[in-house]
């Protein structure tokens, strides 16, 4: 059942450019994938590690600025992409060391502060980042000769990267390391007493999350061909966090659903409704009230409740 549903959804994602001819909506689909990747990568920390980070768009920014500057300074696209992701992940490794000095609210405040530092540098270091005006990225690359300048091609490129990332994160969640990460979320003290190095587990999770967040950043700057401090503001980090919570942080697919809803409300509904921010807030409150663990786990529960009593009455009805 789950597998069939998965295949159908995957085929639907592949077919999007064949069905949607309108460039605006196709670009919207690419944006959704980029934010979905950012939300899924954040969810390694949030859902599986139990660490709430409010600075995750820092990695989107670090990669975008690094790639833009490298290309501007004359580096090749491929080396710029690799170096930018490496640089941003290395920053993630350092941020992880700082943030994991604390747990819970302390962790949240440190990630918030680190995110604000990155934002502050982007905003203030005029000579490097051009401040509030942002930087232009010269042109989309042509990975392996594949031209991703057009909207459908860019969508497919993004989809491939997204699928690869999702596959790796899916493996991670079900791996021994993933089990240790979830154990460290639930009972850190017991995990230590069982021989696990909880700090190292959480730090590695932080590095994984920042790596995939950086990959999302690379896609972001390829899509927009522009990066400014607005992309990495506190509001953006909070929005990514909301995507994961709205869709359901305890599942792999929840943050994707959250990214779809929030990106559509932001970009489409906002053209019809002035108070789209209030609408987003209302959606969030309603979902959390009726499905405190988010949409995907909530719908799964509903489905189980709806399909189970039927099966029971059937077996009772046929003695």
């Amino acid at each position, binding site marked *: 059942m789950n597998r069939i549903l998965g295949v159908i959804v995957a085929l639907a994602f592949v077919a999007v450019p064949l069905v949607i001819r309108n460039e605006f909506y196709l670009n919207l689909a690419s944006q959704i994938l980029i934010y979905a990747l950012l939300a899924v990568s954040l969810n390694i920390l949030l859902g599986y590690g139990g660490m709430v980070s409010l600075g995750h768009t820092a990695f989107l920014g670090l990669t975008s600025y690094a790639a833009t500057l490298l290309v501007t300074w004359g580096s090749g696209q491929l080396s710029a992409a690799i170096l930018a992701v490496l640089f941003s992940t290395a920053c993630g490794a350092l941020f992880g060391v700082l943030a994991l000095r604390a747990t819970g609210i302390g962790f949240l405040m440190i990630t918030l502060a680190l995110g604000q530092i990155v934002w502050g540098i982007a905003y203030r270091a005029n000579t490097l980042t051009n401040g509030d005006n942002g930087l232009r990225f010269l042109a989309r690359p042509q990975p392996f000769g594949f031209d991703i300048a057009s909207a459908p091609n860019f969508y497919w490129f993004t989809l491939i990267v997204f699928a690869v990332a999702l596959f790796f994160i899916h493996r991670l969640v079900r791996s021994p390391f993933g*089990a240790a990460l979830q154990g460290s979320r639930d009972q850190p003290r017991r995990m230590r007493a*069982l021989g696990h190095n909880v700090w190292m587990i959480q730090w590695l999770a932080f590095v994984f999350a920042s790596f995939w967040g950086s990959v999302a950043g690379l896609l972001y700057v390829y899509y927009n061909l522009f990066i400014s401090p607005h992309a990495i503001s506190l509001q953006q980090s909070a929005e990514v966090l909301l995507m994961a919570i709205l869709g359901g942080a305890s599942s792999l697919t929840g943050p994707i659903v959250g990214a779809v809803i929030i990106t559509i409300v932001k970009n489409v509904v906002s053209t019809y409704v002035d108070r789209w921010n209030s609408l987003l807030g209302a959606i969030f409150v309603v979902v959390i009230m009726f499905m405190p663990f988010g949409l995907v786990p909530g719908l799964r529960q509903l489905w189980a409740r709806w399909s189970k009593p039927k099966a029971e009455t059937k077996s009772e009805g046929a003695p």
Partner: protein
Amino acid sequence: MTTPALEIAGLRKRFGGLPATRNVSLAVMPGERRLIIGPNGAGKTTLFNLVTGDLTPDEGSVKLFGQELLKLPTQRRVHLGLARTYQILTLFPKETLVHNVVLGLLGLDRMRWNPWTTLFGQRHLYDAAREALAAVGLGESAERTVSQTSYGERRRLEMAMALAQKPKVLLLDEPLAGLSQQERSQVRDLLAKVPRDVTIVMIEHDMDSALAFAERITLLHYGEVIVEGTRAEVVADPRTKEVYLGE
């Protein structure tokens, strides 16, 4: 002379103005069954927490087979062969019993850093975990979640998790607390079956239920060792009677 399995010397710990452990020294020989008794607040669990690294002592030393532990983080001590159970249950309530034991086995397995293979594919971990559960009489319940089990079953799961790690020194914090008479005798049988290459140190608040198990007994009171000796010596000692009956 052989090196003690666990040697504690001059251990002190204060919580603010309250001394919880005052100059505790004791040596447990390899293979020994040691019982630590004492009334509530005597500092028994604190002593375990100091040995495992959950707490850092103010002074003193703790050696496992001659190796100083105090500078090592908890997980390193576990890798050296130390295992413990908790008085207050700290299990993974939403997971199955077998998953709880697997997490324990994973703690000592290099596989725990692998972010790529599936955990379910690790047959050797699951086989060893089922074996450990069967040894404590929970073989049938391996796939149930912890939240579906009784208190007595959880106590036995605690034991299975510790025993599955094949420790050299096993610290049991009140393994009999809250169990029915029948469950107590089950746990006692289980402990009797633990091979002699495992040294066991057990805390028990209720002296009667644990006496049969102990070869040597240490009586703690207000964070100090009051009496130490064989079972007969400690039972006969007037200070034991004073601590237990004099209040």
